[in-house]
């Protein structure tokens, strides 16, 4: 089997690495125990599905450190959210043809997850990242200088702040 060696490498997840993140994340009320094994298994599966291979450090600890202080991450949804974030990360590395670095993509994801999406992973994947990936495939490279910060506003097709609507709602609430 031609890709057998690649499958072998992807199977070597270091659960210890994941458990070590607890030292930092427990201050945010987030801890991985048995879920670390599930995360490791999911990592192997997603890498195989996305046809990617990790040689050195896994991305998962980096995802954990990037997202652990999010307002939308709680112990109850911690593991599920990490699994989805990991899937989204690898999927969009491919979608963006590796034109974006790990750090730039994580910065972009974290920023949208926290502000634009308010923790909605489907919106992050289906709208924010999808639009941004289209721009990158079309040759956009501004993320290299911005580090992935403040990028979505340049491509966002939804008006996020509508002054008229705000005033109308305010009038309704205040003058009732």
């Amino acid at each position, binding site marked *: 089997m*031609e*890709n057998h*060696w*690649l499958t*072998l*490498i992807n199977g070597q997840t270091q659960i210890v690495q994941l458990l070590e993140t607890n030292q930092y994340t427990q201050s945010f009320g987030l801890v991985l125990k048995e879920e670390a094994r599930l995360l490791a298994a999911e990592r192997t599966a997603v*890498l195989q599905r996305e*046809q*990617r*291979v*990790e*040689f*050195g*450090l*896994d*991305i998962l600890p*980096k995802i954990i450190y990037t997202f652990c202080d999010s307002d939308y991450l709680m112990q109850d949804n911690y593991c599920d959210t990490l699994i989805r974030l990991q899937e989204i990360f*690898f999927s969009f*590395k*491919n979608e963006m043809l*590796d034109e974006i*670095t*790990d*750090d730039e993509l994580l910065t972009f994801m974290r920023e949208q997850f926290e502000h634009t999406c308010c923790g909605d992973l489907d919106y992050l994947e289906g709208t924010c990242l999808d639009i941004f990936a289209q721009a990158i495939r079309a040759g956009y490279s501004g993320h290299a200088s911005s580090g992935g910060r403040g990028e979505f506003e340049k491509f966002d097709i939804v008006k996020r702040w509508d002054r008229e609507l705000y005033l109308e709602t305010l009038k309704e609430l205040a003058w009732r």
Partner: protein
Amino acid sequence: MEKAEYPMEELIPLVAELASVYSGQEHSSVTYEKAQMLMEAVLYCIRECQSSGNHALAPQTASAKERYDAGREIVGEKVAKLLEIYNSLAPDFQDYGSVCLRETFLTGIPLFLAKYDAKFCPQETLLSLDYPILADLSPASGIDAVLEYTTGICLEQQFLQPFGRAYIRKVLCAFHEDYEGLMENICGPVLQNTLGHLMLGKPLAAEGFTAADLEKAEGILSSKPAIDMRNYLTTLLKSLTARYYGRDLMLTDYLKGVIPDMAVRIKNNLHNHCLDKTFVL
């Protein structure tokens, strides 16, 4: 992927190291396609070391890393050698009208030198090497293929040069009036025609084969069974290179590559009594 003589545990760290340089430490993962490319790069360099015959770096004594490093150096040396051969050949290069030869040599080889990635993708030949030389390049790839190819062209130029441009064009035109646009080797027809002269004891300067010449040639050749035909042509070739090319073994070996095809062509033309298609000028 070909089986490696080293266990994967020895090869994977080399691929990992190459991958981290390839991605500039900014990507923790690469696609299967890129990983496969990098593994092939490692194996290519190890094979280079192996084929160099450096016994100090035999698999029993040297690690995969040592052989990979040595192989990478060899690849670098071969690129330098290709550049040297190209630069020495280019000023006097003659395409004798062959568009395919001209484009492959004048456009293709410089493009290869500019684009070849000796570090991450040394196994990639990059060029389709359209002009057919007389050597079989199918087992080779990357710098090996292009170096062998350029050496072949160099030997062809060495062989053709004494005939003169006008004579060669005349011979090629006699074989096919539109030879300029064909993807055909130009050395084979000239050699075939020259062997006809040698066989009949006709001076090379005496152009044209008369009906009597061709009848005589038919008499000589028809007595030879298929296996003898090849040996006979090889003997003629050796006497040609001995007399005019100072017994250049490399040139002789290279030109031998056309003998099997030539023998079949002569046999067919003998059978159809049209040796004038073999010996044309």
